[in-house]
């Protein structure tokens, strides 16, 4: 079984979000980058398939040379090889088309991609990728088992979950639940050392256009201070929620 895990290189949640160049670009200055959490859940499950079912795991990212440490981290966690498509990830459509090119040429059985990334929160890439390559797609995946070419996949739905029977190849939108947080791995020294010698192939992008363009970024207006209410005067809270906020 060949698994491709799509990795987004995203700012850590605790990062200060600032913009530069006339508020048209994200300011990466002083920002700590990590593997997108939803991708890391998928990567961890892929490593499980490697250890239990002999899967071969490739990680892929669309980004500049500055994203390579994130790919190396994925290799240190246990992926076998990495691919970097050497392009600025312009938008979901652009990234999905770049990835589709690799998937078409790579005969992967499973493609994992986080259901959404922490930076632009678009939630576009896994679905678009599946439609571009003609694979079946299951989003918001909370569990997957594979037996031969059959897969049982658990999908989160509003207010519960459903079990789906599907046939490989598949694109899976991953999230917490496919593995739990406690299953996530911190690379050990041996992993870090071997990651240095694993193959990291750099591919040039195919010529496609983005379908959207970020015109400008903006930070939310500063929030007014919290209104503190005396715990002995809860009528005041109810009054505010009813007459001021109008939510009850």
């Amino acid at each position: 079984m060949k698994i491709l895990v799509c990795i987004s290189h995203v700012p850590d949640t605790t990062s200060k979000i600032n913009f530069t160049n006339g508020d048209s670009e994200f300011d990466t200055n002083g920002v700590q980058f990590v593997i997108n959490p939803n991708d890391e859940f998928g990567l961890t499950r892929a490593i499980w398939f490697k250890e239990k079912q002999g899967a071969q795991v490739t990680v892929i990212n669309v980004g500049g040379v500055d994203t390579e440490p994130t790919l190396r981290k994925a290799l240190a966690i246990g992926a076998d090889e990495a691919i970097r498509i050497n392009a600025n990830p312009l938008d979901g459509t652009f990234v999905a088309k770049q990835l589709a090119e690799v998937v078409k040429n790579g005969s992967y059985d499973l493609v994992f991609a986080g259901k959404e990334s922490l930076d632009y929160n678009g939630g576009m890439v896994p679905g678009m990728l599946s439609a571009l390559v003609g694979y079946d797609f299951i989003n918001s995946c909370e569990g997957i088992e594979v037996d031969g070419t059959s897969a049982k996949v658990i999908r989160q739905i509003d207010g519960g979950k459903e079990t789906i029977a599907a046939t490989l190849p598949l694109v899976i939108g991953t999230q917490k639940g496919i593995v739990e947080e406690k299953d996530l791995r911190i690379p050990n020294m041996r992993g870090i050392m071997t990651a240095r010698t694993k193959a990291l192939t750099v591919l040039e992008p195919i010529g496609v256009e983005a379908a959207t363009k970020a015109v400008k970024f903006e930070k939310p207006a500063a929030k007014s201070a919290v209104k503190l209410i005396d715990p002995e005067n809860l009528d005041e809270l109810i009054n505010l929620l009813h007459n001021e906020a109008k939510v009850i």
Partner: protein
Amino acid sequence: MSILIYAESAEGKFKKVALELASYAKNVATSMGTTVTAVTINATDVSELGNYGVDRVLVVSNDSLKTFNAKAYADVLKQAAQKEAAKLVVLSSSTDSLYLAPLVAVGLDAGYASNVVALPESTSPFVVKRTAFSNKAFNHSEILTDVKVIGLAKNSYGVVESISSLTKEDFSPVLNDADFSMKVEGVEKMSGKVTIADADIVVSGGRGLKGPENWGMLEELADVLGAALACSKPVSDLDWRSHEEHVGQTGKPVAANLYIAVGISGAIQHIAGINSSKVKVVINTDPEAPFFKVADYGIVGDAFQVVPKLTEKLKEFKAKNS
């Protein structure tokens, strides 16, 4: 040329997000000088859409579409958009619509902008405001393609009445075997409970509640408010509550009208997941808890005393106001 929306229904009845989409699309259609067409799949009575500005409904009734199937539903929407020559398709941010939208976008060769929180800033060029960086910023995006798909964030526009003279047309899209290559074998759903996704009000508990045995008072508070129950990540990690209730960055997102956080300190990952809620109330003993920085209303106090009292007061309030 009209604007196409997918009016989601459950057991034949429209979801609130369907009416919100209709209201939003009506406003956009008016500014663009066009009309709103809705697609419904196995909805029982589509006339309700005429109260929210929908001009025309493509009624799909098909037993093979009884359970949600992203590929087939995307095919339906694609064919409907082509039939109507729609240049703009508006979807919601429900789990199902988030699943569908990228498939529809590829099918129509359309650019897709998700998490849209306001009316388009301009329609030519087509620019929309979206949340990004887990609600820590907004991204003004231009969609560059001829056909456009947008996903409206929940509760970002609201439901606005607007009476239209609705026309209906039965619509039978052409579906193929490949649309049904996956089979849903089982569904587990909490019954009789308000889900976090649908709730207008969410009551959420954290580690400050000291143990799962203390959730009764939150359940009562949620009951009075018709709210869904949620919890912080530590609470779900400790197995005090099911992870179905975990909200935050790695849990479910919340975009409620009112979010009440009890005994939750407000870690940045938690806030990232709930911040698009309109009004936030925090109840916590620690006045330094970070949640107070993002809340609208705060009570510094012991949840074990405040919550039962608040529930009683709310019962009195509801009795008077209903």
